[in-house]
């Protein structure tokens, strides 16, 4: 049955944003854990660990996120795990976000001069203590702006979860289009809603970046 595209539909779209945000949060959490591991691997003093980290990053950054979504959606079912779009999406996004966050954070860790590590080592601090007390606190400051920037990428990319039937903003838009046959109005609304989520974060990230440069 064809209906009009009404304000109620807009409210439904707005309501669907909570799943976009929920997926973003899960992806950020999962990706954060993976990313921290990757970043630490890549600054490790043991070369094979560094290679492992690099291999992971290259593999993930060399394949489309869409492929990861499908591999998990279809792949987990054949190893006998009942996959809901939630699980497939959570897994795929953690892997994806882990690679990008890992690279961002590695860059921040490596931006701290080697002499800071040396100064720590010379005082008798071990690798873990150097990281914890000297490197990470300084790198965190550098990491915040690009991490917020990546959050914008993540929000936008959760739209791809629509293709495995995960109902979030974009999928809700598709469903609304199917019943109202008003694709232009629907997708413009969807785009505006994404913009309202992302633009403030983009601006915030820029402001953080600027204040970092001023502070230096």
């Amino acid at each position: 049955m064809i209906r009009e595209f009404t304000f109620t539909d807009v409210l439904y779209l707005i309501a669907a944003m909570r799943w976009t945000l929920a997926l973003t949060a899960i992806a950020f959490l999962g990706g954060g854990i993976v990313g921290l591991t990757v970043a630490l691997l890549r600054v490790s003093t043991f070369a094979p660990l560094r290679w492992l980290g690099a291999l992971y990053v290259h593999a993930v950054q060399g394949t489309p996120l869409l492929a990861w979504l499908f591999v998990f959606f279809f792949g987990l079912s054949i190893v006998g795990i009942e996959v809901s779009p939630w699980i497939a999406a959570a897994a795929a996004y953690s892997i994806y976000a882990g690679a990008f966050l890992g690279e961002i954070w590695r860059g921040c860790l490596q931006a701290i001069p080697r002499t800071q590590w040396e100064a720590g080592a010379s005082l008798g601090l071990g690798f873990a203590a150097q990281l914890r007390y000297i490197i990470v606190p300084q790198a965190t400051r550098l990491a915040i702006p690009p991490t917020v920037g990546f959050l914008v990428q993540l929000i936008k990319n959760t739209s791809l979860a629509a293709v495995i039937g995960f109902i979030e903003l974009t999928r809700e838009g598709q469903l609304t289009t199917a019943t109202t046959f008003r694709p232009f109005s629907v997708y413009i609304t969807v785009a505006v809603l994404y913009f309202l989520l992302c633009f403030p974060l983009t601006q915030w990230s820029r402001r953080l970046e600027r204040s970092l440069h001023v502070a230096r």
Partner: protein
Amino acid sequence: MTYSFQFRDVFAAWEFLLDGLILTLELSVVTMLSGLVIGLAGSAAKVYGPGWLKAIVAVYVEAIRNTPLIVQLFLIFFGLPSAGIKFNAETAAYIALSINLGAYSIEILRAGLQAIPRSQIEAGQSLGLSGLQIFRYVIIFPALRLIYPALASQFVLLMLATSVVSQISAQDLFHTASIIQSRTFRDFEVYIVVAGAYLLLALIFRLMFAGLYQLIFSRARR
């Protein structure tokens, strides 16, 4: 856990894969070129243009960079026809991807242009060069060199992102996966193979960009 992988059926459909691969390559290369053109023009407008032009470019860049590519694609392919503008899937793909990459390129190139010290421009001016000449001979080369790595990795990301056009049934590499899947019912294998193909493409593009850098910039001094 008794699943046995069977890649034979998937590889038997290599002709589909090849066709898809070719469209993905075409989409990527054409979009990279158009994205570069948009990026050059847009960044120049944003840095050196009059206020109103800067504003227009800024709106374009922010609108694109803060919304998902797939929504932009849907808007162009599904949405515009209701306003009387119709494209086939491939054309819509080219348009959406170019508009998308253009916005990112503008941001990257803008950073490059702004990193060129004012003194360079002043030196050009004092030699009597025109604005356009300064842009062409003094600014653009070092600026491009500066942002080349960022631009190259954005291009590789774009190549991967072209997979999204499968969702409007453009017959790209990713779309062939769903065709093969429906014929062989080898869901998992298909996507593994396709993911591998993208990985290979990404590697080839990275190597190509590295080679191109050598070709363009290696003889030039800093």
